[in-house]
C-alpha cells in the first residue's frame, strides 16, 4: 500500500443513505462486490482517493440508530459499530469499566477524526497501525456480524486476517462489539509522534486470564504468550516487569516500514511493556 502522493478526486459512485439495517442487508445482497459501506468515511474516502477501492455504490450507514451507542447487556458491554471514537472516549461506563478502550479511543488521531471515525470502520479497515483492534483483542471482545442469511459472532482476533484482510463476507454488516466484564484492570498505551499513527502500542488486561497484545508491529495485533506466562506465574512485581520487558523485546516480531525500523520497534515494545505493567499495577 502506498499512501503516496495524493489524488485530488474520488472515483465515481452512487451514494445511498440507509435508514434501516434491513435496507443495508438487502443492498449488500443485491450489489455484492460493487457496494461499500461508509461509516465515518475517514478510511473509505482515503482508500478511494488512493484507488485502493472503487465501489460503484457507497452506502452511508452512520445514520442508522440501532448501530450506535454503548449499553450494558447482562455481564457484557456492547458498543454499536457506528459509535464514534469520540463518543467511546467520553462514555462514563467505558471510562469506569474498560479503561483500555477509554484510552485507545481518546488518544486515537485527533479531535476532528475521532468525531467521525467509528469503531466498526477502525476494525474493518484492517490496517496495521490502528488502535481499537489492539484493545479489543486484549479485552477478548467479540465482533457481531449480520447478513440476510443470519447472524454470527467471532473473536476480533479471528476476524482480522492480515493487511487489508478480514473475515467479513461481502453481504455482511458489523452491528456491534461486545466486551465481557469485568475489565477494570486493563490498559492501552502507545508510542506515536503527535497525532500520527502509533509506531507501537500495547494493551494489557489482567482481569481473569492475562492477555498482552501489541499493535502497529505486525499486519494484525499480536498476543505475546511469553509475557503473559511471566505475569500469570509471577504476578506484577519489579522483577517480573524487568523480565517481561526483556522477553517482549526478544520475542515480539516487529515489521519494518516507513514509520520505523524493526529494531526501533522492538526497543519501544520493551519500554511500553514495562511502563504499561507499572501503571496497571497501581
Amino acid at each position, binding site marked *: 500500500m502506498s*499512501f503516496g502522493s*495524493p*489524488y*485530488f*478526486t*474520488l*472515483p*465515481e*459512485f*452512487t*451514494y445511498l*443513505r440507509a435508514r434501516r439495517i434491513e435496507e443495508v442487508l438487502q443492498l449488500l445482497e443485491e450489489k455484492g462486490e460493487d457496494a461499500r459501506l*461508509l461509516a465515518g*468515511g*475517514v478510511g473509505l*474516502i*482515503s482508500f*478511494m*482517493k488512493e484507488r485502493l477501492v472503487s465501489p460503484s455504490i*457507497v452506502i*452511508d450507514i452512520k445514520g442508522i440508530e440501532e448501530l450506535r451507542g454503548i449499553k450494558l447487556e447482562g455481564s457484557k458491554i456492547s458498543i454499536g459499530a457506528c459509535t464514534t471514537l469520540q463518543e467511546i472516549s467520553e462514555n462514563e461506563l467505558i471510562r469506569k469499566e474498560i479503561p483500555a478502550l477509554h484510552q485507545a479511543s481518546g488518544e486515537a*488521531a*485527533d*479531535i*476532528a*477524526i475521532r*468525531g*467521525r471515525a467509528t469503531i466498526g470502520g477502525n476494525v474493518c479497515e484492517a490496517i496495521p497501525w490502528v488502535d481499537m483492534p489492539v484493545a479489543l483483542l486484549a479485552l477478548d471482545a467479540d465482533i457481531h456480524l449480520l447478513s440476510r442469511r443470519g447472524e454470527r459472532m467471532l473473536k476480533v482476533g479471528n476476524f482480522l486476517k492480515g493487511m487489508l484482510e478480514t473475515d467479513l463476507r461481502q453481504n455482511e454488516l458489523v452491528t456491534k462489539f461486545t466486551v465481557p466484564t469485568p475489565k477494570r484492570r486493563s490498559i492501552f498505551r502507545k508510542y506515536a509522534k*503527535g*497525532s500520527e499513527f502509533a509506531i507501537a502500542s500495547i494493551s494489557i488486561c489482567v482481569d481473569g486470564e492475562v492477555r498482552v497484545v501489541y499493535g502497529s508491529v505486525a499486519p494484525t495485533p499480536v498476543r505475546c504468550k511469553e509475557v503473559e506466562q511471566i505475569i500469570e506465574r509471577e504476578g506484577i512485581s519489579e522483577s517480573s516487569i524487568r523480565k517481561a520487558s526483556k522477553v517482549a523485546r526478544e520475542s515480539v516480531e516487529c515489521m519494518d516500514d516507513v514509520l520505523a525500523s524493526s529494531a526501533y520497534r522492538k526497543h519501544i515494545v520493551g519500554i511500553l511493556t514495562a511502563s504499561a505493567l507499572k501503571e496497571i499495577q497501581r
Partner: protein
Amino acid sequence: MKKLSFNVNGIRRNTLTKDNELLLDLLRERLGVKSVKAACWRGECGLCTVLFDGKPVKSCLVLAVEAEGREITTAEGLAEGERLSDIQDAFVKYGASQCGFCTPAFVLTCHYIIESGKAKTEKEALELLNGLICRCGTYNQIREALASLLSGK
C-alpha cells in the same frame, strides 16, 4: 447530480453536487469559501477543518452529500458583523497569526475547544490542537490566546 441543501455560516445554500464531490471542493472551489484551505488532501494537516453541526471535521474526508441539512461553520462565520468572536479577538491581541495559511483552522478549532468546554486545562486544550500540524513562528502566541480564554482572563 443531486440536489443539496445546507447552511454555510447560517445562510441557506441550495446547489447541485456529484456524489463523489468532497465537501472541501464544494466549499472552496464552488461556493468560494476561501478560508477553507486545501493542502494535504488526506486528513493529516487539518487545514481544511470546518465545523460540521458545531464539531470540527476535516472537509477533505467528508463527502459534500453528507452535508445535506447540516450546518457548516467556517472562519468567515465566527464574527457577528464587525464584532469579532472572543477567540478572534484573542488571536489579534496576542498576535497569533503564524503565516496566515493555517489561521482559519486554528481559529475554528480553538473556538470549538472554548465553546465545548472539552478542555479543563491548558495541557488538555493543546492536545486538542494536535490534528493541526502547523507549528511555525507564533505557535506560542496561539497557546497564549487559547489559554487566555480557558482561564477566563
